């Protein structure tokens, strides 16, 4: 029974955990949630999803945050949605900027100094020629500081 309880707790913690990573010099990037879910209905409805971004860096050290898709969104039957069909709006500006997702090409999402937090809203352009299906891909956020 105790084992089952621990197992359930572990699953709950796993679902709630943010995408986070620490750097070798103490910088940390926390993104919540760790999955973007788009529900795409008939156009002109626009599918959107939101994440919060937290950059934790000691002092006033400058930083730069980029985002990159690891390829187009792919469905199980082989259909694709180009990464460029996803745009985002970052806030607060000018700390976090707006942009268009690119596959295998990092795009600037924000830059600043010291610890900051923001929100990024992603929008998937909706078109009638999208094939029905369940699509997946991964986004890589990269925080760097000199």
């Amino acid at each position: 029974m105790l084992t089952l309880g621990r197992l359930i707790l572990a699953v709950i913690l796993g679902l709630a955990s943010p995408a986070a990573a620490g750097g070798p010099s103490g910088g940390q990037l926390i993104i919540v949630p760790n999955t973007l879910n788009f529900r795409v209905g008939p156009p002109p409805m626009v599918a959107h999803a939101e994440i919060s971004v937290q950059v934790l860096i000691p002092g006033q050290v400058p930083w730069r945050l980029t985002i990159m898709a690891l390829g187009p969104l792919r469905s199980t039957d082989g259909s694709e949605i180009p990464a460029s069909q996803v745009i985002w709006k970052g806030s607060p500006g000018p700390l976090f900027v707006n942009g268009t997702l690119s596959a295998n090409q990092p795009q600037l999402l924000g830059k600043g100094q010291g610890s900051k937090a923001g929100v990024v809203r992603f929008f998937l352009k909706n078109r009638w020629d999208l094939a029905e299906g369940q699509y997946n891909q991964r986004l890589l956020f990269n925080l760097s500081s000199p």
Partner: protein
Amino acid sequence: MKVKSILLMVLALSLVGAGAAWGVQATADVKVAATVSSSAKLTLATSSITFPDADPDTVKSIPANENGALVTAKVKTGSSTPATLKILAADDLKSGSDTIPIANVTSTATNTSGSFFSAGPVAWSKTSPGATVGQGKSGSYTGTFSWFLVNDWNYATGSYTASATYTLLVP
């Protein structure tokens, strides 16, 4: 000469490495999931069509007054499951006890945007699921419909009516 080339390359790599040196480096991996649901929209510029009286000797096929009606079909469907547009008549054309077979009505189509509508002529049917007048993958399509009635001296005089339904199906 070969040794010199190798040395130059090593120096270049060293410079690139120095430029990319950052004190803090952190990455985060986020999954993207998109669920695209199937959907369909169909619009037809007219909800009724009328065939005027005509002399069978001179007009073998009577065009409807509404010919060239604009039709729009918008569909989202799976990549291997094309959407279909069907026309199903409830019954034959009837005037009292007199009938004209519904298969004597045909339709043709032109595609003005994309390629979805069948050029035809397609004979109407009262047998489910009806006659197919369009088929295609996800997309937004526009075209025009025209309808024709086979003219025949054997038709009894009268005013005939029938109803039919266009259905855009996404599997």
